[in-house]
């Protein structure tokens, strides 16, 4: 068979693009090299929906950021993903930085950012009393928010599959040829034929583009390290707290997450290895020192985990979005770094527009359902909702993850969902089982058992995140 569109990369861009395209009667394949969606840059970033004052006016970053941020609340609502419009603050720590805030404000106006306000020291501390006393002013952006990047991606992929798209995991594209009007993608799962290709391959998008002779994309991977603090830290800050931006990006932030933790980070270090998500002592130390500048009471003593994420930085310093010069049926969505998550809904919509506009006859998918099925979350449910769920399915009465109150029913749902979980980390990202303060110490082995049972495998075949990341060896003597 020949697909209409093959999307390479199931990150937030790929998954949302698949969903946008599934509004039409198209055969869509969403290809992912790893064992799950959201395994690259999407997995580990700040999860911030930026207001849009950072990007230089006229850039694609500026254009898509403001549009995407405006679309985000509705998308999250349809996809049943938590989104919080908590607002952001760029905090100044000196008179020079106060001047910088003014230029950020001006830039925001040029980018059509609404809801900005320059705050005095007093106004700032009225909003955020726990900031370091050196803080002397801030730029408030009311439209900024927070979202969980992988949850959004999981939901988008699930919804795309529900609406007819196919998800292929462990399907790494190793070469591309063109036979007349059809691309032949040589993948680790065999050849895939398609009329259009969307290149959403993150830190590998230049390598994918090069397969059709497009050398316009040049990617440098940048690693960013973070800490997640225990929920017991509470709301030391309610807004996302930025420092003034530097050459390498928006600097170290202190922010609540939609799940109620505090996130601090990231650093920004270029890395040769495009899949390198190792943390470094120096990097983590840096995060600690820089975060303390914003908020002295934030201590990594309450850290429950640290991690590193990757950003696909394009040498052009802007997104690379649109048909390739080498082949107009090959659409690039490359160099997607911050504000990539904020821009994602708008980028996806734009790519779907390019393809459907170019296609000679494409009809809308009349069976398209925009709403993702309600997901039962024990920890967020009222007593009545809990009882009702247990009556429906007793597995909702069996708590597997104590720290995050995740039930067996929710884990089974996550595995059985369209584009569902196939490994321990996949269950974790979908349900939060293992994401609490014990980090899976108690529930890890139970999740392995449930995965094995649901997938019809032995427990030593279950992996942490696909490939060779098996957890157990052979049976004991």
């Amino acid at each position: 068979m020949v697909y209409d569109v093959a999307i390479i990369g199931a990150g937030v861009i790929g998954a949302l693009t698949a969903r946008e395209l599934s509004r039409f009667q198209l055969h869509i394949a969403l290809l992912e090299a790893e064992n799950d969606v959201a395994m690259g840059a999407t997995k580990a970033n700040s999860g911030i929906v930026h207001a849009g004052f950072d990007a230089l006016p006229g850039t694609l970053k500026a254009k898509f950021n403001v549009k995407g941020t405006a679309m985000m609340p509705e998308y999250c609502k349809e996809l049943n993903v938590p989104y919080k419009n908590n607002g952001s603050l760029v905090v100044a720590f000196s008179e020079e930085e106060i001047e910088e805030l003014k230029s950020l404000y001006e830039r925001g106006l040029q980018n059509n950012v609404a809801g900005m306000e320059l705050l005095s020291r007093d106004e700032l501390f009225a909003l955020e009393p726990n900031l370091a006393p050196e803080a002397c002013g801030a730029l408030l952006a009311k439209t900024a928010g927070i979202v969980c990047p992988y949850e959004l991606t999981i939901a988008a992929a699930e919804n795309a599959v529900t609406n007819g798209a196919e998800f292929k995991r462990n399907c790494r594209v190793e070469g591309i040829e063109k036979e007349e009007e059809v691309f032949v993608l040589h993948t680790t799962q065999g050849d895939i034929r398609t009329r259009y290709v969307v290149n959403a391959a993150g830190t590998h998008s230049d390598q994918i583009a090069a397969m059709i002779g497009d050398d316009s994309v040049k990617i440098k991977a940048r690693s960013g390290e973070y800490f997640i603090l225990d929920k017991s830290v509470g709301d030391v800050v309610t807004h996302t707290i930025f420092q003034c931006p530097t050459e390498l990006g928006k600097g170290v932030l202190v922010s609540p997450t939609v799940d109620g933790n505090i996130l601090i980070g990231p650093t920004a270090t270029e890395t040769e290895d495009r899949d390198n998500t190792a943390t470094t002592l120096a990097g983590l130390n840096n995060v600690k020192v820089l975060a303390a500048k914003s908020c002295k009471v934030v201590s990594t003593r309450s850290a429950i985990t640290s991690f590193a994420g990757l950003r696909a930085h394009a040498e052009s310093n802007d997104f690379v979005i649109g048909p390739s010069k080498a082949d107009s049926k090959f659409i690039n969505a490359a160099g997607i770094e911050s504000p990539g998550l904020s821009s994602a809904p708008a980028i996806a919509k734009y790519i779907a527009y390019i393809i459907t506009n170019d296609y000679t006859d494409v009809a809308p998918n009349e069976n398209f359902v925009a709403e993702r099925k309600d997901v039962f979350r024990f920890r967020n449910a009222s007593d009545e909702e809990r009882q009702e769920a247990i009556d429906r399915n007793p597995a909702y009465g069996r708590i597997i993850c104590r720290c995050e109150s995740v039930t067996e029913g929710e884990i089974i749902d996550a595995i059985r969902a369209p584009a569902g979980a196939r490994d321990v980390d996949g269950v974790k990202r979908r349900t939060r089982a293992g994401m609490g303060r014990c980090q899976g110490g108690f529930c890890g082995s139970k999740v392995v058992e449930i995965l094995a049972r649901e997938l019809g495998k032995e427990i030593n075949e279950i992996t942490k995140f696909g490939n060779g990341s098996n957890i157990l060896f052979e049976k004991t003597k």
Partner: protein
Amino acid sequence: MINYDLVVIGGGPAGMAAALKAKECGVGSILILERAETLGGILEQCIHTGFGLHYFGEELSGPEYAERFIKELKTTDIQVKCDTMALDISENNVVTAVNKTDGLLKIQAKAVILAMGCRERPRGALEMAGTRASGIMTAGTAQKYVNIDGYMPGKEVVILGSGDIGLIMARRMTLEGAKVKVVCEIMPYSGGLTRNIVQCLDDFDIPLRLSTTVIETHGKDRLEGVTIAKVDEKLQPIKGTEEYIPCDTLMLSVGLIPENELTKNVGIEMDRVTNGAVVDEMRQTDHKGIFACGNVLHVHDLVDYVTLESQLAGQGAAEYILNKQPKETVYVSTTTGTGVRYLVPQRVNIKNPNDVKLYFRVGRIFKNAKVVLECDGKVISSKKKVKLAPGEMENVIIPADVLASMNESGVICVRVEE
């Protein structure tokens, strides 16, 4: 709403001993809530021996030790609900719990005993850089895989932390055919029992490296190795001492944390050192009718002491329910003197007519030292000790007549004299 005189949260050694004692003291209806499928708690996966030497005067395995209490429970009318998770305790002692068969349960209790045990400190709490490969797990998780599930979690193992579970797992993995390359301990002394160091490491020629930690993990999918390094007095890695050790598994035995989420939600006063509730000599918290015992109160090294402590809590709860508590309550705080890291109980009712045993841990290793108990500035007892170590819990007794002679402004202090 169901009604019970006493609800015990946790069916491990602490919960079982507390419930049995309360029954013996005459409490009517008792319910134990246990989140695992069976009673016994962590003892069920501790198939090595060494349990019960103090309490039963014989050496038992973990499951055997638990079995004695499970059997005794069966001879009583104490109710047990396994696979049941307690979610909340309200101001007026209504316990909310959930399971597959009953759904949501609301249980009105006259008294509650907290016996939820503890959990292992995870990697995230450590400053360890590197990849997120599989093969990094707590020693307790590894123990469950080997002893309960019957699968090998690794073949070439490095263990970080010389807590008792880490030491036990070093021996267990070796007996199962794995190669345990080294046990690293960041402190200049081991946090485990001396007998475990001898029986689990020395007997198998497994090296223990003190003042050494793991600073980095390597390997993208499965762990391929770790970098270890010596640390200075401030526990910071010393440059130039790094060493790469190939391994497929890193087990963490880096401390235990009492599981006090329920306790904190009730608003019970907590001890910042033990990470458990502040209690009196009967293990009653500042919330009347709520008691705590076992590892949820402070981490023990021997289950025998958990049993003894839990019996106190059971008796205390019974006295509360049956209105037999001392008529008067006059609390005196216990104070940690030189060398003593914490004391349990943190306060003593001087109107209690019995001897009171204080449990404590020291902050570092002492050799040929004296444990001194002072009440109102007067030395009550001074006991010589050849060795005191943070890994071994100690105790000292305040005689009843000394308590009776004290008044409300009294001072109880335990210190170490070198």
